[in-house]
């Protein structure tokens, strides 16, 4: 799988309250949530973001509340991948569970600037920074996580497993 788009760059500790403020949690409709994604720190994000774009954070991306509405809002915005030096653990789980690709890379998180054109080749394990003519390696995911990814998220993985246990 290959994706291509421009980078939105943010700092350390991007919390789920700014990714999607609680005042919009009366709905979990992805199309509703995406209208307000990142609005408290980047007012025009929803207007500017295009399919394939990437979000790049630094340390501890997605800290705070467990709201799955945060990765849902990012995914619905058309963002193809979130890259950060490190992720908060609940956001990390949630992203794999709902099928939002995320990549932990210190180098990419440091080097990529806002507006850089980024191409990601997940099968090759490479992030290409076309603007800077640089390539950053993606580390392989742990096997357990790979299973969730290849099943298209946790629910399909569990459904498949329960089906097998029941001999279906």
């Amino acid at each position: 799988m290959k994706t291509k788009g421009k980078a939105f760059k943010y700092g350390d500790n991007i919390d789920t309250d700014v990714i999607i403020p609680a005042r919009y949690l009366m709905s979990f409709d992805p199309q509703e949530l995406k209208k307000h994604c990142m609005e408290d720190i980047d007012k025009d994000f929803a207007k500017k973001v295009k399919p394939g774009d990437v979000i790049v954070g630094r340390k501890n991306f997605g800290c705070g509340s467990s709201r799955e509405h945060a990765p849902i809002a990012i995914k619905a915005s058309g963002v193809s991948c979130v890259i950060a030096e490190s992720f908060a653990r609940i956001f990390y789980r949630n992203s794999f569970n709902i099928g939002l690709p995320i990549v932990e890379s210190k180098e990419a998180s440091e080097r990529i600037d806002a507006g850089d054109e980024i191409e990601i080749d997940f099968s090759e394990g490479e992030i290409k920074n076309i603007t800077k003519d640089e390539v950053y390696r993606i580390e392989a995911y742990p096997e357990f996580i790979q299973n969730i990814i290849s099943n298209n998220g946790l629910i399909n993985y569990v459904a498949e497993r329960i089906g097998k246990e029941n001999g279906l």
Partner: protein
Amino acid sequence: MAMTMTQKILAEHAGLTEVYPGQFIEARLDMVLGNDITAPVAIKEFEKIGVKDVFDKTKIALVPDHFTPNKDIKSAQQCKAMREFAWEKEIENYFEIGEMGIEHALLPEKGLVVPGDVVIGADSHTCTYGALGAFSTGVGSTDMGAAMALGKCWFKVPEAIEFELIGKPTKWVSGKDIILHIIGKIGVDGARYKSMEFTGDGVANLSMDDRFTIANMAIEAGAKNGIFEVDDKTLEYVKEHSKRDFKIYKRDPDAEYSEKITIDLSTIRPTVSFPHSPDNTRTIDEVGDIEIDQVVIGSCTNGRIDDLRIAAKVLKGKKINRRVRTIIFPATQNIYLKAMEEGLLKIFIEAGAVVSTPTCGPCLGGHMGILAEGERAVATTNRNFVGRMGHQSSEVYLASPAVAAASAVMGKIANPEDLI
């Protein structure tokens, strides 16, 4: 292999004799929790799996506490979805308005969590139950949906930091000051993906309510869980609240920790987290003149009876500054009742505060105390992120019930030592 408390609990629940940090395991769950914001999403995911019933009707807790009493039609719809699921699936631990409370105060009070349990909740502050010597951690809605079907959840076994607590806190210092001090010291990602294990002689000097507050905010240091060793106070609490059997897991004497940090409780000062991060801490002696518009006392962090007693001690016979809107919300109906019987509510109302029904409302900027542009609040809640309690330019200062109550009277962030 020598194991920490958390590792031992996880090993047994995974049916293994030992586990090591970084290992992926699947553990059996003793309780699965959701609220009116996260459960509707989990229910939708649960229904995709295609099983008819939940794994165990007695091991799921559904608590409508965030936007309740229903703040608008959309919230009412979410609560309705959760309520209908609860009735249809005969979920034993569904708590309607009238018997509800803020989930993390309610579950221990109802005896639904005991030492040695493995608990997940679709709410980040699920880590609160570590105060009881249980492993508990926050997850998302999809994890909750899968867990309602399987009764199991996947975990990466965490390594741990030992926080050895020694000494006795001074008069106005409580669990909140201790955890804010720790977060200020290690940062909001200081324990990312790790367990925070609280040990040492100083633990005996902390009430259960102090311990709940400390474990509650482990997530604010990025931790997977916070956990206390079980002692006489824990056993007394569990005996009072639960009839369930339980097992106490003690760490091995040579358990490995990535770090050991010793905290002398006697040296901790009342502590305040400045906007917009819980690790942006200052002691009360360093705060300067910060005028405020609102005070919020309550939440899953600090809405328990000890918290209300402390606030009442500060507010008794005093008048709250006319410019400060003060909202006090007991965390559960039982705590509310106890506060009434002890005369605390009278003290609050006479001082000029309002007392609210249990709700998470103001803490996350939902309802019941939203801040306007540029307004400042001192809150006993757990997060002070940008826009957390209202307008994007509003500010939240996190503090203990004692500091919050003193600030309400003074109209600015204040030291209870100066008031009493």
